[in-house]
Every structure is written in structure tokens, then in C-alpha cells.
């Protein structure tokens, strides 16, 4: 009953950054220690590296910590902060708490999905650029409707505003490269 449809980046794209990341995994394990109590901090830092927790890395961590892979999987699936699916470079969290909902978070969400070309239940674009999720409250109800792109908060969103923000984001990204 293996779950299908788990997002994985294309092979070539993965391997370029993989080596650096795997070195980092070992650095994390060595720094935090190979004890069972270090599991959660290790998972947190590893997720920072990969943007999710790949299966083979979880098995590797289990081996290093002397745990069964089933137990590591159990911890990784218990906490909402961990993802076993690859996430996009930009994670957009659209708040759909009461305040945001009544001030129009739905049209904002629809605009984002249309813009990044996500349909149905899909959360991450196939080029692994964007992940779009809804969250229950970001604690910034005064700015409703509110959303986050990675660590940055954007308040008083409208469908028009989001397009401007994403234009800006893509322009900055192009300039970086």
C-alpha cells in the first residue's frame, strides 16, 4: 500500500545538489549526536536541506541512530512540520482562518493556483518551483487576508496583488541567476 504520486524532482536536477546535501546530513548527525533523543532536531535540520524528508535519508538516519525505520517514519508522520513529499522552492501558505476567510482568502488562493498552474488537489508544481498550501491561522488577523511565501509575510492580499508579488519574485530570481 505504498502511497503513489509522491513528488520527486527529476533525476538530473536532484543529483547536482544531492552531494552537498548528503554531506550536510552527515554533518547534522555528527553535530547533534547519534542518540535517539536527537531524532527530531535532526529531522528538522535535514528537512531544511532537502525541503522534505526523502525515504532513503530517513532509513539512513534510522541506521545511524540505531532505530527501526518504522519508528523514524512514525515520528516523521506524527508532526505536521515534517513533509515526506518534495516541496517547491517557494512555499506559499495562504491563511484560511476565519478572519482571512471572510475577507476573501479564497479568491486569493484561486488566483495563485491559476498563476502557478496548479489544478485539483495538487500542492506542488511539477517543476518543484511552488508549493501552495492553506493554513488555519498565521496569527496576523489584522492584516487579513494574509499569506506567507517562505519566511516572509504579505498582508491585505488581493488577486491582483499576488500577481505583482510573484512577478517581482521571478524577476529577482532571474537577476540572481
Amino acid at each position, binding site marked *: *500500500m*505504498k*502511497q503513489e504520486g509522491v513528488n520527486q524532482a527529476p*533525476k*538530473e536536477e*536532484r*543529483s*547536482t545538489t*544531492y*552531494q552537498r546535501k*548528503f*554531506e550536510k546530513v*552527515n554533518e547534522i548527525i555528527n553535530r547533534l549526536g547519534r542518540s535517539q533523543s536527537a531524532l527530531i532536531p535532526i529531522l528538522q535540520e535535514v528537512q531544511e536541506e532537502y525541503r522534505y524528508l526523502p*525515504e*532513503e*535519508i*530517513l*532509513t*539512513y538516519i*534510522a*541506521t*545511524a541512530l540505531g*532505530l*527501526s*525505520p*518504522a*519508528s*523514524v*517514519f*512514525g515520528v516523521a*508522520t*506524527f*508532526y505536521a512540520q515534517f513533509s515526506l513529499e518534495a516541496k517547491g522552492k517557494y512555499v506559499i501558505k495562504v491563511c484560511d482562518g476565519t478572519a482571512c476567510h471572510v475577507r476573501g482568502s479564497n479568491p486569493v488562493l484561486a488566483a495563485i493556483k491559476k498563476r502557478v498552474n496548479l489544478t485539483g488537489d495538487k500542492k506542488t508544481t511539477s517543476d518543484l518551483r511552488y508549493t501552495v498550501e492553506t493554513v488555519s491561522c498565521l496569527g496576523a488577523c489584522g492584516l487579513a487576508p494574509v499569506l506567507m511565501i517562505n519566511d516572509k509575510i504579505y498582508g491585505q492580499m488581493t488577486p491582483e496583488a499576488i500577481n505583482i508579488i510573484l512577478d517581482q519574485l521571478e524577476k529577482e530570481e532571474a537577476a540572481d541567476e
Partner: protein
Amino acid sequence: MEQKNAVYIDGQLVELNGEKNILELTRKIGIEIPTFCYHSELSLYGACRMCVVEVEGRGIMASCSTPPAPGMKILTNSPRVQRVRRTVLELLLANHDRECTTCDRNGSCKLQELANRFGVKKIRFGERDVKLPLDHSSHSLVRDPNKCILCGDCVRMCAEVQGIGVLDFAGRGSKTVVTPAFHKNLADVDCVNCGQCSAVCPTGAIVVKDETDRAWAFIHNPEKLVVVQVAPAVRVALGEEFGLPAGEIVTGKVVAALKRLGFDKVFDTSIAADLTVIEETHEFIQRLQNGERLPQFTSCCPAWVKFAEHNGVEYLKNLSSCRSPQQMFGSLVKKYWAKEIGKKPEDIIVVSIMPCTAKKYEAALPQFATGGIPDVDLVLTTQELARMIREAGLVFDQLDVESFDTPFGFTTGAGVIFGTTGGVAEAVLRAAHEFVTGKPIDQINFEAVRGFAHRKEATVEIAGQQIKVAVVHGLANAKTLLQEIKEGKADYQIVEVMACPGGCVGGAGQPIAPTMETKKERAKGIYNADKLSQLRKAQDNPVVTKFYDQWLAKPNSAAAHEALHTSYSNRGRINGEEIELLTSKQPDTVDIAVCVGTCCYLNGSYDTLQKLMKLATATDVKDRINLHATFCLEQCEQGPVIKVDDEIINGVTPDTVEKVFAEKIRPKLG
């Protein structure tokens, strides 16, 4: 009057004698508090909340995890307790597939029993509408997550008693499930098929794979000669299914029942066990004389063998190469006996009645087939045989006893005690002295290796040499022993391992045993059967001697090796993906895989990998190397292991990696 060291239970004054929890105390005074997740051999979990009692001044408490305190006033059946228990049951049932009539555990389900006992007639909550898929991948077990009540008994059994941890909880809240890692199937992880999870499961969430239909099909096929072998442990447990006490020897009735069911020949696996003793003891003596591959581990238990293939690969060479008695039997029947009676192997069907779920998996292994025809066609557990007897309407109690057929029906006590922990070691000890010195040993009973202690030890002198024997049951105990051997803290020459607590008498294919006491009674039955045997030593079995004369020449001969021995392979831990580190788009590249499985990791494969990575990214070879970390290259005893294209290179430590790179890899790059 207040007593200093006593509590009141339902108004009755009960003295405390160091009981750890209220539940233990109530059971002592004959009150049966219902439980799902409480097993005395497992850790306390306190999840199911069935065992609630009311404690004055403290309210409703879980009796399994509340220590009794002097002066406590405990009510076990107050209106409040009754209400809570019923609600708990209703909630569990709301989340449970209630297709009782078609469930394997219909009639032996604890949830069903308690719902009946506590008069739950109506469930106020809706039924779960999402159906999760069943896992049929295992040869031995079927997992149905829709029947799981999340008591965690299987999780703790596998981790604590068997030391594996195949199953654990995943997800949270209403989406919690018990599953192998990454929702994989049982067949794709390091499950050893011991089935102890199914033996503690209170419901039908994990059950033994039922193959009685296949048995009927064989029996009803007139073109096949269907022979059946019965393992030792079956004869002291089957009676329980029909109301007889545990440990009662019902061999004669089992034979009678099998004949009435339509099996053409009924044989005894114990004769193959006698054969195993002779082969295994000769193998041991040879190793002892050469001083190699010691300790010798027994290999009759397929769950232990698979455990070693996953977790103790550096000791695979120490396992006796003997097949288990079940497989020796099948091999002899199909290779030799068939010819003798003028039949083709494919026209004979070998069915086994086993106390064991792992035997189903063992029989299906490709190495135990001759020309594509399995040596053992079908394995039924004691439970399945009971089902067939019921289906056929046989009144077990009233069956007249019958005896086994020839030639595979004559056994000694040595072959019978294989059914309990310590039995294989004892049978070997009864033979070893005689094989070395030529003189039979006076001692028949080796009490030191009997009983249910986690580890049993004995020292026996053979021709001036002290032979140290260890016996363990429960794979967690085997794991500890392996670790001690690895660290040089334990020194034995023979180690017997049986995966199930109590050995085969406690196998998961046996009738569900509520307590360890049942298993102890069965073990007693086994030793009684041994006592009743006229011949107690395997080497005294005249039929086995005849087998050697006719078919096998002598112990450990080429013919014996061909028919009775096997080899083992490393299985890694989990079907995992590789971790890709460097991928090149160039056409003529070299592929390097570095093992980061448990053994290699502990041997320092990570440092090897680090160095290789540096070497591989050096400018002149850049983009010419594909590098990945893989989970097992199956050479664990010589780790760290790397694979360069198709060549496996052992012992690549951080110190030698540069040399290996220069000699093995660089030349390939031109």
C-alpha cells in the same frame, strides 16, 4: 479500621504484596478486568482504557498503570466504570470494520468477546467510511488495518520481544495507523514472519494467512498422493482448540483426524528432526575439530534464519547449513521416497502441520524446490488444522487414536523435544559425545537448557573438551547474545535460537495462548512425550539409519548435503532506494556504489564515502563518475564495501580508499 498495607476493592479488604498495579491486584482476588493492551510480557502502554476502575477521591483511573496505594478505595464495577467501559467499546467499534462473520478471528476476537460481555448492543457513532487496503504480500500473515484498534500490542511485541520493530504507529489523531516503515508491505521490510504480532493482536488486524482451501483442493484431487507431516509442538496444543487442557498429548487423535480428513499418509516431522540432529552434530564436531565457524547456530527456525539474514550477516557462516526438519522431510519424500514407491515428485503433495507461521514462508523459498516443484507444497498451522477438523464435523474428543504411517513415522524423543526451547540443543548434546568418543553418554536429560529463562547455559565435557552451550528464545534475546559475541563478552560453541517465546510450542500458528503458563504446559507435554519414548537419542532411530544406508550413505556426505543442507543470503534491511550523489551525463563513466547499510556504516563507510567524493570531484576526473550510496551490497562481514561498475571491493577503509581509487578506478578512466 484502616489497615496499613491494604486497599479496599469493591468493599473487600485486600492486602498489598508489592503488586505493581491495581490490575494485578484485582486478578489475584478473582476479578477479571477487561484489557486489550495489557500483556505481562510487554511494557505498560495504557492506551486502550478498557481496564478503568473508579478510585475514591481520584476518579476514573486506568488500573494497568496505577499503582495501588494503601487505603485506596477501588470500585471495579460502579455505574460510572460500566458507562466508561461501554463508551470505550463503542468508540473502538465505531472505528472498526465490523464484518465479523467473514473475519478470521470470528469467535476468537477479544473485541467481539468484550462487546458481548459488556452488552454493547448499539453503537451511537457512525462507521468509518474510508477503507484502507489490505496487505497480502506476506506468505505468512495478512494485515487488515481496518480492523486495527491501535492498542499497539503488535508494535511492542515486535520491538520488545523480537527486537525488530517492523511495525510502528504513523500519522496522528484520527489518521493514526500501525504500519511498516513508509507504508511498505510486510514482504518488503525486515519482517521475519514469526507472527507473534498476530498472536497478541486482540482483533483480526493481523492474522495468519489461511490456506485451508488449498489443502482441501489437494485432498480432493484423486490424481495426487497427499502426505502430511506433523511437527512436534502440534501434538501438545491442538487439543486446546477442542476444550482439552494445554499440554495434553493428542498425537493419536491428530493422526486419526488427518486420516479422516483424507490425507493419504500421515507422517511425523520428528523423524526429520532426528535426521537434523545427526547432520547438525556431525557438522558441529567437524567445526570443533577445525576450530572454525564457532559458535555454531542452529538453523531449524526460519524466523531466526531470516532475522540473521537481515541483522546478523557477519554470522551467517556460523549458522548450521542444515535445512529445517520440515524441509529435510519434504526433500527426502520428493527426492527418494517418491522413487521408491514409483511416483513422480509432482504427483506427491507434501503438506505440513506446523505451530509456525514462518514455515509458510520457508516452504516457498526457491532453494527448497527440486526442478521447480516445491519440496513442501503447503504449510498449515495448528489453528488451520483445527478449522479443517471443525469444518469436516469431526468430534475431536471422540476420535479413536491411530498411529503414524511408515516409513516416516518412527521417531525418538530427541526429535520430539525440538518443539520447545532448549530441545534442539539437548538433542545435539545427547548425540555429540557418542559421535566423538564412540561411547554413548549416560546423561539423557539436560535440565540446564530446559525452561523459559531468557538465556540458558550448559557446559558439557566431550573428550576432555569443555563445550559451552547457550539457548535463547525470543529474537531480542538472540540480538543481545549476538551483540555480546561481537564484543567478545560471550563465548559459546553451540547456540540454539528459536524466535518465538517458549520455542515452537509458543509459535504463532498455535491456538491463541492467553498467558505464558499455557506455553509452559505445552513444553511439559513435550518432555512427557520424550519420557514416554523408548528411544531417546536421534542416533538410535533405526529408520534414520536405514535412510543413510539406502539413500544418503553417511552423515554430511555429498548426497546428504544435496538433500538436507542449504545456504543463506544477506537480505539487507529494507528495500530502500539509493542515494544519488554524483551523476554524470558523460557517455563513458564509472559507476561507484558505496554501502551505507548498518554493518558498513558501523565499519566507517561514511568516511570512505567522504574521501571518495573528494577524489571523484578532483578536476581531472570530474563528470566521469557516478557515485551513489546504497543500502546493502550483501558482503557485510567485510565492510565497508564498495562496488565499482560490477566489481565488488571489500574492506575499503578511509585509509585504503586512495589506494583502491588509484588501482581500481583511475585505470578505468583512461
